[in-house]
């Protein structure tokens, strides 16, 4: 086992970094919890029949009046906080992961091509990226939201909320990938193995995806983790502001928005518990991204 760990430098460094280990455990637990929410959660917060108003506003079990059926208490509708958080995290993670995937595919594809072809194509892609960067993510989301409301028939608008939100977040994140992919591609283009491939007469698509892409994955992987955290945070922000998901399909952001109403009335858990959960998730993903960056860039060690 030890010999195996020593063979891979990344693994070896991992065993020596307590922060990375804790972050990995927190992130893993949250993600597993979210993935298996229907199996773990005691109630389904989407199913109105599964909870009762009678149980409303119960505090966490360690407080006075808390009961062990609801370890972290309930909200005003009587929903179990644990279940709400697990389902909320599920939605947040689904949106975050899909937004990140779309941003990766779009950004890396455009960045690779811009770096490979250079010249005018590069200029056009990068100017679009600049414009994108000048628009705040919230503005982009509002824009896409508005367009979606305008062109989609109202029956399916509710069903497509998640898709619209995902697209809006992806569009505000792809620039990071495009810029990094382009810069790394420029570096690789100077390497002789790429020149060899071009001289041999290989197809540009093959040179880009078979030769260059595997060699620029390191920095992209780092951005993927960091941007996953950003995407989750962005979704929470948008939902908190009410642009994102409605209250009947609560994501973490929506939960926090609902909790805001109870901040000053003594039911602190409705706000604080989802907030702390969000912070823990985002911070741990960020620490993992930071750790990956150290692994891929030995100079920072």
């Amino acid at each position, binding site marked *: 086992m030890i010999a195996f760990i020593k063979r891979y430098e990344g693994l*070896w460094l991992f065993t020596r970094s307590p922060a990375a280990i804790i972050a990995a455990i927190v992130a893993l637990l949250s993600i597993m919890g979210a993935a298996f929410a229907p199996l773990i959660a005691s109630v389904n917060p989407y199913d109105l029949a599964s909870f009762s108003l009678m149980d409303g506003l119960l505090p966490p079990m360690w407080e006075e009046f808390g009961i062990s059926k609801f370890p972290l208490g309930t909200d005003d509708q009587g929903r179990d906080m644990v279940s709400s958080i697990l389902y909320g995290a599920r939605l947040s993670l689904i949106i975050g992961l899909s937004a990140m995937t779309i941003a990766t595919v779009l950004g890396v594809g455009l960045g690779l091509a811009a770096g490979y072809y250079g010249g005018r194509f590069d200029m056009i892609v990068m100017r679009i990226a600049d414009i994108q960067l000048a628009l705040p993510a919230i503005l982009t989301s509002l824009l896409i939201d508005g367009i979606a409301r305008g062109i989609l028939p109202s029956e399916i608008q509710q069903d497509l909320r998640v898709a619209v939100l995902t697209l809006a977040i992806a569009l505000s994140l792809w620039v990071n990938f495009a810029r990094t992919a382009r810069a790394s591609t420029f570096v690789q283009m100077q390497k002789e193995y790429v020149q*060899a491939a071009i001289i041999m*007469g290989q197809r540009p698509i093959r040179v880009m995806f078979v030769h260059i892409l595997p060699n620029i994955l390191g920095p992209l992987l780092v951005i993927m983790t960091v941007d996953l955290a950003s995407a989750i945070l962005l979704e929470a922000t948008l939902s908190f502001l009410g642009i994102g998901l409605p209250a009947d399909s609560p994501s973490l952001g929506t939960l926090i928005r609902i909790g805001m109403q109870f901040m000053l009335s003594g039911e602190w858990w409705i706000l604080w518990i989802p907030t702390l959960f969000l912070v823990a998730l985002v911070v741990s993903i960020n620490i993992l991204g930071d750790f990956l960056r150290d692994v891929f860039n030995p100079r920072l060690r």
Partner: protein
Amino acid sequence: MLKVKNLTVKFPSRFGDITAIEDVAMSIASGEIHGLVGESGAGKSTVGAAIIGLLQAPGFVADGQMTLADTDLRNLTAVEAHNMRGKRISMIFQDPQTSLNPLMRVEDQLIETIQAHEDISSKDARARAVEILEEIGIQNASERIKAYPHQFSGGMRQRVVIALALSTNPEVIIADEPTTALDVAVQSQVLDLIKELATNRKIGFMLITHDIGVIAQVADRVSVMRYGKVLESGTTAQVLGDPQHPYTQALLDSVPPLDRKIDRFRVPEEESNPSQKDVGNHAERWLLEGVMQENVGLKVENLRVEFPGVRTSLWQKPDSFTALHDISFDVKPGSILGLVGESGSGKSTLAKAITGLVNPTAGHMALGAETLPPGKLRTRIHPSRQIVQMIFQDPYSSLNPRHRISAILSEPLWLYGLVNDGGERRELARAMLDLVGMAPEDLDKYPHQFSGGQRQRIAVARALLARPRFLICDEPTSALDVSIQAEMLNLLKDLHAKFGLTILFISHNLAVVRQMSDDMVVLRNGRIEEFGRAQNVYQNPKSEYTRELLELTPVLPTTWATK
């Protein structure tokens, strides 16, 4: 004056301590130049770093004594060691591009260094700085001192670095590959300067280098290192003239001579595997099948390459920079043409123009009887893509680090539709590895598992698997150690003899080119200085420039080499 005894340096790692150098002993008297020679990984630089106390963490001195006059260098506090550096021991680094701060005037860097060690006014420090610059041969020093490093040429910049090392009157200077990044003409000036300083100022020099010619030219004494140990040590004439250790002998045998062409180098210990006849034969037969076609030559006429200049005005089109001025030459079918030039002479640009990576502005190229379309006009499937193959300078970047050797080698086979069956491709790649002197099992490894010389062999195998008729070798040995270089040159000579390849051999090293070429071209600032039979060019150079290059190339004195 500087004495080192039993010096052992270790580096802790996740596999336990690694001994970088072991039991090294040497002494440097004042005014003496002590050469430290060895191939990469021999531990030369570690010796220098240990003496000056700048071992890279986590390395540590495990054992031994180091004394400078009566100071024990091992028992210094951090502050004392800091004061020692620069004041009594200075260092000159390899690359003058990076050892000066690009944002500070030379003046400020010199004054800063002087004031760090002596309590004198800026005015006095400046006067001293000007004096030193004049001493090391920078004209009009009181004006030039105000310049920034980038305003000096490479050689001048290295002089400034030397001035920086001198500014505190050190007793010993450690020079780590001080001329490796420089062209021959500049190298010889810098070496002369070092020699002068040793004689006039009585400074002891430790000259770390891989170039035996440099050692022969300036060093008084020399130590030969390998695997962290000193194998042989003595006066230069003694060690290089009458080497006792077999490794030193082998090393000297692999240094290409400038004054004659030798058919094959005697190689120390073959890094390569002895061929298992029948395996390599398969590749040989396959290659010879393709050789049935005639040898091809290359004709280049009035080739001109211009690069767009830097824009200085918004309205004017910038002047273009001409990298190649109407170059004409031809490579005869089946011959080797050597192309020599200093950095910036346009050698690599020429190679890129031939392979189509660079768009020439004018001129005509023909491969055999067919015109070679320039740059972007050459389609991806043009036959020359297969006929012309290239071997690059840097074996560390010419193989895709994420691909297995088998994938790298079978690429040309399917790309050109030479072999369509996957199993057969693998078989042929295996045979080709054997042909270039590698083990067939290496097929499933990744490039990083090989040394520079082995990687270069793999690059040759990849080129051969395209069944080329014309090979461009762009500085194929300049990143390799001399003994590996000798093996590589042997391999190229063998391949040329067996398969009648036409080769364009590009190098900055006149001695290496001499060993390879039938004809040769001397390139300078994008113009041809000389073009003719190699024999004639070396023995009877027509151009003043060629003669100068030949004179300045450091070589072993003939009396030593022909023992």
